[in-house]
């Protein structure tokens, strides 16, 4: 598959800008529904968008905005869903945590931890995927603690399902880090115990992610076997108290973030921000041009 990397970059930057815009709308109290932003998750969502071919499908969690935005045609279509507009694709009936558009590859989203895994497995199991189609089932480090994650792995392997489990590991479940709520889970060892292929992504490099997903996808298609991809990432928008305690971002307004050309990159720490990684890759000047172009295209007025 020939990858147009410029389109990848634009898509990822647009994903961030749309989320920043939604954050501003949260600040303006435009929404009745809870919004779970996913800034910091754009690389994996963009990579999956550009890896989806044929009739691939995606099954999301309550934190689905980055996927919906990735596949969306416009900001307005997402905004209309979140304000429960009757003009939206779902006629305002899905809210935010169950948001999906069946005209895109996203077939289902669930607000219950792990609930989407069963539906994804059923879809993959029905045998009507077509020879070259797979299912992406997105989950998180909190949901893999649910029994249904284990059940889904066993079922997927036993039935030879063409499914990739995407585990977005931001270490947080609501307000507790992994270390505060449980012992570590070595997902590679768990995958090995099921004899399921495992890939770990942690660089936030979207091009690397696209390549890794395509590799996994080819394996899934040719072998008719499931695959697990664990993505280590940070959900940006967290803050620190005066005492130095980290308050993670879970939902609602990311208070310390605003919509501006300067704020498109939210963190320059390590590999936390995929947009920072991108700007280092293509150069800050090229990055700023892409950002400005998208701002103009979307008629956005930065705060």
């Amino acid at each position, binding site marked *: 598959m020939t990858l147009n990397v410029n389109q990848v970059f634009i898509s990822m930057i647009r994903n961030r800008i749309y989320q920043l815009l939604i954050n501003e709308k949260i600040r303006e109290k435009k929404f009745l529904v809870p919004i779970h932003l996913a800034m910091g998750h754009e690389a994996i969502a963009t990579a999956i968008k550009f890896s989806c071919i044929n009739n691939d499908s995606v099954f999301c969690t309550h934190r689905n905005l980055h996927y919906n935005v990735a596949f969306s045609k416009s900001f307005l279509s997402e905004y209309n869903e979140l304000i429960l507009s009757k003009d939206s694709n*779902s006629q305002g*009936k*899905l809210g935010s945590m*169950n948001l999906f558009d*069946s005209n895109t590859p996203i*077939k*289902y989203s*669930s*607000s*219950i931890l792990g*609930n989407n*895994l*069963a*539906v*994804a*497995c*059923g*879809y*993959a*199991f*029905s*045998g*009507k*995927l077509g020879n070259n189609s797979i299912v992406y089932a997105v989950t998180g480090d909190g949901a893999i603690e649910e*029994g*249904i994650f284990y*059940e*889904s792995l*066993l*079922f997927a392997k*036993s039935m030879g399902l063409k499914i990739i489990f995407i585990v977005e590991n931001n270490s947080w479940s609501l307000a507790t880090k992994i270390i505060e709520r449980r012992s570590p889970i070595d997902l590679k060892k768990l995958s090995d115990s099921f004899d399921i292929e495992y890939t770990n992504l942690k660089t936030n490099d979207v091009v690397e992610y696209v390549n890794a997903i395509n590799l996994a996808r080819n394996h899934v298609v040719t072998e008719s076997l499931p695959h697990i991809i664990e993505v280590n990432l940070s959900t940006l928008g967290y803050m620190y108290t005066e005492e130095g305690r980290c308050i993670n971002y879970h939902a609602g307004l990311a208070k310390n973030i605003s919509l501006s050309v300067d704020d498109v990159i939210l963190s320059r720490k390590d590999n936390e921000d995929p947009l920072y990684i991108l700007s280092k890759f293509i150069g800050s000047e090229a990055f700023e041009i892409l950002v400005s172009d998208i701002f103009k295209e979307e008629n956005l007025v930065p705060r």
Partner: protein
Amino acid sequence: MKLVDHLNNKLRSIVCSSNAETIFYGQNINAGSCLGGLTKNLNNIDNLRILNTQNSENLLTGIGFGISLNNINSYYFMKQLDFLLLGIDHLVNTLNIFRLMKLNTTNGIFCILSDKGYEGPQSSFNSVSSISSIGNLDFFQLATAADVDILLEKHFFSNKFKVFCVSQTLLSSNLITLEPSNFQDDIFKYGLGRDLNIILFGNSMIYFEEIIKEIDINKCAIYSVNNQNQNNFEFIIDDIPIGGNILIVDDDRSLNKTSDRFLRKVLHLNKFSLKIIQREFLLSDLSPGPDRLMLKDIGL
């Protein structure tokens, strides 16, 4: 013939005649006794896949919804109603989303209610109305030839999620072949008499033959409320004359009984003479033991 054989035959004929692509799946449904014969001999049907699965009831309750996204019907067959407790999330939350989708396929559950007694306290669950209520879903009890022939035919491929449930006792018993004298929606009436009107809710059709022996079916009527999601009882209320004697039998241990819904509709009418026999949750009543109402003790 036993109920299980009639049911098995009906399942085969419904699936064959529909040509709709269908999957039956569940633990041990195509091995060993095939759930006491319920799912035997269902191989070699072109449009049916039948599959033995792992022991993962939460997952298995949910995959039916995913299957329906691909325009394929499916039923999860389970040996014991209790298995469904592990999949309650799907009966409520997943079902809510699929209700909005309005697909042209069906998926559902086919289960057996453990009511033979003596299998222990963890085989005492019979709160079918609670399951129906928690998801606001259709929950059909199949007890007689008529139930199988009419209800299964009508609802099996309807575009709604539903549960079909069969009493373990009745499954291996001789088939009740008495034809209903009338029926409306999912309520069947047996007999034409007026002396006594007996209304059976929950799993109470297990008392049908015992009741038939005690009464004269030509002088009495028995109504079976076969769908625990039933909310329209006009068929019964309009059918029984003013001053009629009604005996309600509800074997369901739930605190939210289908018969309570009926009582809410009739009590204020002050039209009938009512006697109510409802199962309560009593520790002493839990299996191992007969695990049933003793109708003779309560003066039937």
